[in-house]
């Protein structure tokens, strides 16, 4: 039978995520690179006690709607729904915005493991690559050294960073085919491309599904074996008029002025 990794709905794509699962969520911070519809499906499913591995913990749909995004959910949807037990992140809060994660963290309702962005990337890659760990000089003398082994190699001190594995990786790509081959666009490649294959099950949300062979062998960013399911975004959605809070409006203005 021909390989066919394409699934027909977002709910079907996330149907086997269970309470207590560890999920990776691709993207960087800007919602353009986030798997918005997969996150919505996880929210609909209502699974709890999740550990989320992600660069950020989200800004929330309101901010992104003002910027004109049709698909506007970011990791905040799982935070505000109370579905997270713990986050592993590098930029969990914002300099311009008190996000829901910060509120819950202060209330003691969620745990946080901080990482540096480069070490987070390498630790995810280590899981994908079957490595036992890597030594990095980043974090020496900082809070990230606490509780970790160190070693002097060739006169320089390094921290042992361990792989981060997950049960599911939810990622966003531009195009995908039935083998699971993916390409990304511009700065939306980010964590999406390295999370693909670092989890037991990788689920890719794509803008477009293409015929096998349409993606040239030299431009495929993520080869099929790293991807288990591919699900396509609808062209049209019911884009409800949502009410935007003053807080979101204010942070939107700050963002426009100096970035997030």
């Amino acid at each position, binding site marked *: 039978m021909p390989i066919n990794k394409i699934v027909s709905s977002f709910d079907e794509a996330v149907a086997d995520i269970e309470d207590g699962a560890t999920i990776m969520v691709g993207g960087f911070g800007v919602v353009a690179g986030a798997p918005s519809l997969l996150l919505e499906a996880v929210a609909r499913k209502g699974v709890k006690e999740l550990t989320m591995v992600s660069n950020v913990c989200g800004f929330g749909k309101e901010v992104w709607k003002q910027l004109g995004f049709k698909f506007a959910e970011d990791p905040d949807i799982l935070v505000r729904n109370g579905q997270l037990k713990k986050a592993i992140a590098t930029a969990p809060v914002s300099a311009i915005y008190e996000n829901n994660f910060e509120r819950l963290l202060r209330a003691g309702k969620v745990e946080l493991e901080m990482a540096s962005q480069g070490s987070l990337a390498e630790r995810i890659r280590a899981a994908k690559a*079957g490595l036992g760990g890597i030594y990095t000089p980043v974090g020496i003398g900082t809070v990230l050294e606490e509780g970790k082994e160190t070693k002097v190699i060739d006169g320089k001190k390094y921290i042992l960073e361990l792989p981060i594995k997950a049960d599911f990786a939810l990622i966003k790509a531009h195009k995908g085919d039935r083998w699971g081959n993916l390409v990304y666009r511009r700065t939306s490649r980010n964590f999406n491309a390295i999370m693909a294959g670092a989890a037991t099950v990788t689920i890719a949300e794509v803008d477009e599904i293409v015929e096998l062979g349409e993606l040239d062998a030299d431009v495929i960013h993520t080869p099929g074996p790293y991807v288990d399911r591919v699900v396509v975004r609808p062209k049209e959605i019911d884009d409800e008029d949502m009410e935007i809070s003053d807080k979101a409006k204010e942070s939107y203005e700050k963002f426009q002025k100096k970035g997030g």
Partner: protein
Amino acid sequence: MQEKQKLDRETIALRVAKEFQDGDVVNLGLGLPGLASNFVPSGREVLFQAEIGVLGFGELTAPGEGDYELVNASGQTVREQPGMSCFDHAESFVMIRGGHVDISVMGAFQVSEKGDLANYMVPERKIGTIGGAMDLAIGTKKLIVAMNHTTKDGQPRILKKCTYPITALNCVDLIVTDIAVMEVIEKGLLLREVAPGWTPEEVQQLTEPALIVDPDCQEITLM
């Protein structure tokens, strides 16, 4: 004892190919294992991976006709096919070592009853070629060894302990030889199939460790 018929290379390859399931990512070693690509069961879609950095390529081209920038791990030109992807060496071995290749088929000099593999150096030669063998042996989900059951002068190659330099420990899952198919299980080697005309006892005589004969042990089937 009269010389019994043994399976030829093509038949061994045919038996190996029977293991390939729909969607499997398969890496084939030099020589006999490579032949298995000709025998993928009809209707099954299998993706071949080569450690040089390509996945999903097609069949070998005729000599001199291919694109020399599209070769398998033996350096032979292969055909492009839709869905194929190319990548660098680090990515290729992330794929191999990270458990993303389902099946690896290799030749071997020796295999032990614990599934230890020796296939990168004949001790007399003193120089070997490791290549990607250690990585594949450790990293792929299922390692199939395809080889003759004995050396040319009739000595067993399936041993209690390998005497040749080790490629990897406890890595072999299935051994397909010219007279038998054996699975490496916790307790030792499970004899699952014998070549036509062979009895389990006759296979045992050419094998150093004691074989566990599967109650369902049967003649090798190819389809």
